[in-house]
């Protein structure tokens, strides 16, 4: 009898990434179906960090909601409350004093830098592991971020969840010594950011690991609703600060860095260039901060509740991750009837089923990291 060679297809090897895995940027489960080292298919499971923020807002007064929302995207808290406050102000046609608007933008841009620094640092961990060069990058980025958090503390008394935005204005004034400190920060951090940009963008291993990996074409980015640095790296010139301007961004001069290929490399470089643009904005603000009131409404604890008119309203801001939109339905009472958060991380993350298959296991981590999802923002 002849020996027959039976070729049996054992199927794909399924491995789990997460929810408890060192690489995922939060609690997120990715089931990878591998053929050797290549990914054939993926399944993504969301919802491990679902805290019911949207439902919670249905029982809170409008003035109580911003602090809750700051826990949503926990790497750039102010942009959440800024988006919400903006939407409510547009609903009720509340004027915001010029000074308040400037301070809001100042804090938002500072947090954009800190958020992008975290994105870069954790991307280092994805690329190099926590026991190698990635850890060095991570710690350097966090050292710089600490300086920004110190300024936040000086400004608002809180390092992270600043809670500076309230409907009608801001809560805290920018004092002279804070402006001096921000000036020092700009002088300190600009050469450092430029240096990081130079070091990273010329690092051969970095280029090998990220160039033409996880390419998102402009069309795919538009179809999936990507926004922020992810969309801009694909060459889509869309920035809400420019295209649907809010607060005082129309008075400020800044560029919008764009990528060309839409790969992981471009996304990282776009973020680093955005840092420099944010520095430019901060410089303009602290040089030209107008005088005036901090808020057009009475202080926060006034007895009179805010009751927006009946109807629904949507508006969005540019969070460090992209278009952060708030859709509020009001029935005329002091609490929202329904609020829907359009989170940038969720839309950016939805693309992974398209771009991960065909890559290596190691790339699944770096592609996920280059999208910079914050799972508080994805699951809400």
């Amino acid at each position: 009898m002849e020996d027959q060679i039976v070729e049996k297809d054992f199927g794909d090897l399924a491995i789990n990434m997460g929810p408890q895995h060192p690489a995922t940027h939060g609690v997120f489960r990715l089931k990878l179906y591998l053929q050797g080292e290549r990914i054939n298919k993926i399944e993504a499971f969301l919802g491990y960090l679902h805290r019911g923020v949207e439902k919670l807002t249905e029982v809170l007064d409008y003035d109580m909601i911003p602090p809750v929302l700051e826990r949503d995207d926990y790497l750039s808290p102010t942009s959440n409350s800024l988006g919400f406050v903006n939407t409510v102000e547009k609903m009720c046609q509340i004027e915001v004093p010029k000074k308040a608007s400037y301070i809001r933008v100042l804090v938002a841009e500072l947090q954009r830098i800190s958020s992008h620094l975290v994105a870069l640092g954790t991307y280092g961990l994805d690329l190099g592991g926590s026991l190698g060069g990635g850890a060095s990058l991570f710690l350097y980025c966090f050292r710089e971020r600490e300086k920004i958090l110190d300024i936040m503390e000086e400004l608002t008394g809180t390092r992270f969840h600043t809670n500076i935005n309230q409907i009608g204005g801001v809560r805290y004034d920018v004092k002279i010594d804070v402006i001096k400190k921000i000036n020092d920060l700009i002088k300190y951090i600009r050469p450092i950011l430029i240096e990081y940009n130079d070091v990273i963008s010329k690092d051969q291993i970095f280029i090998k690991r990220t160039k033409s990996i996880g390419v998102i074409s402009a069309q795919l980015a538009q179809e999936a609703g990507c926004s922020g640095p992810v969309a801009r790296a694909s060459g889509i010139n869309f920035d809400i600060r420019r295209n649907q301007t809010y607060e005082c961004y129309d008075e400020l001069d800044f560029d919008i860095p764009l990528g060309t290929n839409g790969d992981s490399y471009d996304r990282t470089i776009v973020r680093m260039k955005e840092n420099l643009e944010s520095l430019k904005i901060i410089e303009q603000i602290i040089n030209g901060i107008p005088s005036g009131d901090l808020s057009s409404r009475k202080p926060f604890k006034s007895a009179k509740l805010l009751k927006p008119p009946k109807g629904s309203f949507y508006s969005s801001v540019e969070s460090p991750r992209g278009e952060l939109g708030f859709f509020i339905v009001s029935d005329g009472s002091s609490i929202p009837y329904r609020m829907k958060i359009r989170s940038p991380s969720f839309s950016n993350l939805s693309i992974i089923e398209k771009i991960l298959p065909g890559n290596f296991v190691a790339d699944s981590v770096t592609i996920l990291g280059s999208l910079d999802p914050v799972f508080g923002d994805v699951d809400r």
Partner: protein
Amino acid sequence: MFIEFLSFSKPIFQSITTLILIVAYLVWLERKIAARMQSRIGPYLVGKPHGWLQPLADALKLMSKDDSKPSSSDSLLFNFGPIWVMVVSLSAFALLPFYFDNPMINASLSLMLFIAISSLIIVGIFVSGWSSSNKYSLISVMRSVAQIISYEIPLVISLLIPCILIGSLSFGDIIESQKNIWFIFSPGLGQISFVIFFISALAEGNRIPFDLSEAESELVSGYTTEYSGIKFALFYLAEYVHLFGISVLGSIIFFGGPHGPFITSNLIIVIKSLVFFTFIVFVRWSFFRIRIDQLLRFNWSKLIPISFVVLLIACLTKYFSEFN
């Protein structure tokens, strides 16, 4: 009989104790250097000047840990893996003229024997990853076998180049021939073969940028995922023992071994290998990790052809200098 056994085993125990001590402090040294590179302080509180008792504390902690084992694992192989890795990396030191005035085994082929013994580590790694019955470990050891086997070729060739020029495979002759000038300073061949040696030694020792078998960003912790307590400590120590072995080897083959500027002593080897080790640490804490396919492509398409060309040049140099 017993006395004979004691006199036989005394140097073995002595050298193992010394090695373990050195290696424990290598870990401390690496943590300190890494901390300096990352603008941190590093271990500080355990032991007064700069946490010098930290290695002891770590060892005690790991020994007192619960020894857990996945229920579906192959118990015999699971325990065999770390022991094998540790034994092999320690026994490679029997050939190195590092602790005693003479190595414990003085063979005329000691370099080849050293490479042969230290390349057996992969058996332990593979066995432990296979028997863990964990998918991360499995992928990790698959990578690890491909990586270590392919990087053995340039490593051996880069070590053969000095041997061909010197004309001997024994450490004694290699050291003797570098009395006046270290091999690293021999024009052209010395530097190229050192670079090849350094790259493939990093890959052999599973260090960043080539630590693909431990890639904790995707494979959690590779083949050590399921290990805990003292077994994990064995793996950890074995990695550093192996690395120190590579450092000693490098300092003997390329940096003149015990020949210092003023004195000739085996202490000089230790100092040189510490410098070599520090350099490896610098590399580790400043690079990202490359991907497995890039690693293998780099090896087979660049490193191995270059090393063969250099080997050929070395042979021709030897031929023309000896026979013409």
